[in-house]
């Protein structure tokens, strides 16, 4: 079957170590993760993973079943690019003189909707968000003008048709609210604990 880009959306508990458990499901099948983002979801205490892979639908479907099988995973969806609204963020560090002296660079940045994040004498940092092709095109253009540094963030995506699960999620959140995360409180008390 033909491989294409799929975006997997997972709703999970906010558990320590879950990212390892999830990434292990991909790595054991030798599937490369193109992009991975984790963040809180609209429901408190429930996290959302957005994972991009290039695979056939059959493989993605099986992966989602394996993912959903994990105790801490509430739901797994997979979607093609057409079924989601998605964005990737990018930061570009460009020499300041190029922007100030060459107006066409500024025009280029305007054209791509980039906004300024930091202005220094030696460099300027721009930020933009969009589809990967747009970001890649801007990167290519800025490379011609001495792009110093570039970083792109992981994909974030909203499923166009996810109203049904949103309702369920909010119901979960209402019925079974999650407690707050507590980190290991002993890690800074090494000296005061007796060891064998």
């Amino acid at each position: 079957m033909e491989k294409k880009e799929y975006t997997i959306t997972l709703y999970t508990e906010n558990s320590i170590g879950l990212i390892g458990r999830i990434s292990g499901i991909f790595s054991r099948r030798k599937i490369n993760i193109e992009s991975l983002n984790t963040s809180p979801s609209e429901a408190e205490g429930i996290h959302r993973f957005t994972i991009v892979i290039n695979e056939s639908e059959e493989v993605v479907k099986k992966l989602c079943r394996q993912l959903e099988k994990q105790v801490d995973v509430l739901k797994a969806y997979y979607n093609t690019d057409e079924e989601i609204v998605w964005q990737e963020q990018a930061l570009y560090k460009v020499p300041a003189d190029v922007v100030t002296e060459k107006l066409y660079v500024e025009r280029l940045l305007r054209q791509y909707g980039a906004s300024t994040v930091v202005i220094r004498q030696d460099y300027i940092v721009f930020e933009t968000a969009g589809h990967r092709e747009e970001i890649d095109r801007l990167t290519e253009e800025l490379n011609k003008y001495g792009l110093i540094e570039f970083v792109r963030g992981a994909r974030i995506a909203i499923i166009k048709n996810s109203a049904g699960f949103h309702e369920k999620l909010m119901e979960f959140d209402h019925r079974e609210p999650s407690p707050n995360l507590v980190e290991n409180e002993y890690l800074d008390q090494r000296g005061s604990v007796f060891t064998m």
Partner: protein
Amino acid sequence: MNTIQKTGYKPQVEERGKAIEISGSKAVLEALLEEGVDTVFGYPGGAIMPIYDALYDYNSQLKHILVRHEQGAIHAAQGFARSSGKTGVVFATSGPGATNLVTGLADAMIDSNPIVCITGQVFASLLGTDAFQETDVINITTPITKWNYQVTDASEIPEAIARAFHIAATGRPGPVLIDITKNAQLQLFDYMGYKKCSHIRSYRPEPEIRNEYIEKAAELINQAQKPFVLFGQGVILGKAEAEFKAFIEKAGIPSASTLLGLSALPSDHSLYVGMLGMHGNYAPNVMTNECDVLIAVGMRFDDRVTGRLDQYAKQAKIIHLDIDPAEIDKNVKTTVPVWGNCKKTLPLLTELVKSNNHGAWLDQFRELEKEEIKEVIHNELNPSGPVMTMGEVIKALNELTNGDAIITTDVGQHQMVASRYAKFNHSKSSVTSGGLGTMGFGLPAAIGAWYGAPQKTVIAIVGDGGFQMTLQELGTIMQFGAKVKIIILNNEFLGMVRQWQQLFNEKRYSFVDITSPDFVALAKAYHIEGQKVSEREDLKEALKKAIDHDGAYLLEVMVGKENNVFPMVTQGSSVSDIRLK
């Protein structure tokens, strides 16, 4: 003391009046008692010492079996779980203690055994510092546990253990590991009582049963001319033996077992047509590619069952009943998936299927069975040559046990022979390592199986190779008096590898010739009675003596060095290309 709840947890412990201040270690043991645990297999060490210290006061309620290696502990717990239907419990210390559980965890994971492992861990303040005997046991065991969790504060213990037992035993069972830091074991906290876990927000152990699929499945079965049932351990795990029997009897469908499904249906049932797979019976393998509807019940289409997938049952419509939705379509594309516990789905299906008797179709199995008897079984069970075969040992054993014993096996040729020829009258009486194929499993599993069903005769059938991987558990038998009968089928080879080398590597016997100690003398060193048999005329009497002996017994039987296990589906072949010789 305030209650610390880790991520994703909702407190479930209810107040039962006034709080009592107890240690984390005591809370562990209280939790086990609340879960109905009476037997624990384990090995102490520095990081789990507080739990062992607390155990000193619980001796009358909790039986602790001190094994000789942590791998022995977890295989024993697996044997316990498989023979009793309960959850097996293991204690181990941190670092090497915990890593010695890894093989057993992987084995339990693939064979769906409900196990709760409790490991000690270094003080929470030392986590991540490469402290003495520290390993990152959570990350090491993540892919081979159904769930794992590290406790760093005593107040987490009751809920963590309650969740562990719930997760291990529900849905598709599996191993769970709780790693408890030493400070949490020592720490005093306000114990508010224990509440069993019956619900976890993100965990749905059983998928919703969809009636439309039951109806569709029944329709396919009712239209079928040549329906065929493959059943696996899901029938036993779902405690659905009676429901399964009712289903096949009403529909009149020939039924074959996977290796782990053995004993779910009595071996002498009129619809039982044998075992599937690489060394399974001839008829079920061949007829898989002849049937028109294949009904898989609680089995997972392992590659040792299917052979070449692209030639597997291509002509058949496939109905797959499984509690684990991830198994549907994983290996074999299903026509109708029937999600759910087969204890619930089978009666729904039975209600809708018509009474039938596929007599002519069943006769086809019996015809092929006759061929297998003529070509393979007769010679294996009634050899004319002077050298004993493994099959005749199992046949003699059947005559003595009448199919009522629990049989554990190790892994290799003897495992396949025992699984092919042993008779089982009762469910949960075949205990073997299927998915992982772990050599060294048989002996410790037998110890656990005996504790799980002490009223039964438990027989470990092992090879000379696998036995030497965990033979130190003879010490456990000696100390605790587990009445396990050990039958070593000694062919002085790592037999299965040798068979492959013979068949596929032009007899290049590379490092399969294994020298063994004097097993009987070894048993005697552990104060276990034993005998070695090399002549056929001594076999039956020796077996009888072993079984009648009040206590553990080791019987070493010398069998043919280069005997092979047939039939065989060679790797990369279709199941219908099964070789009879």
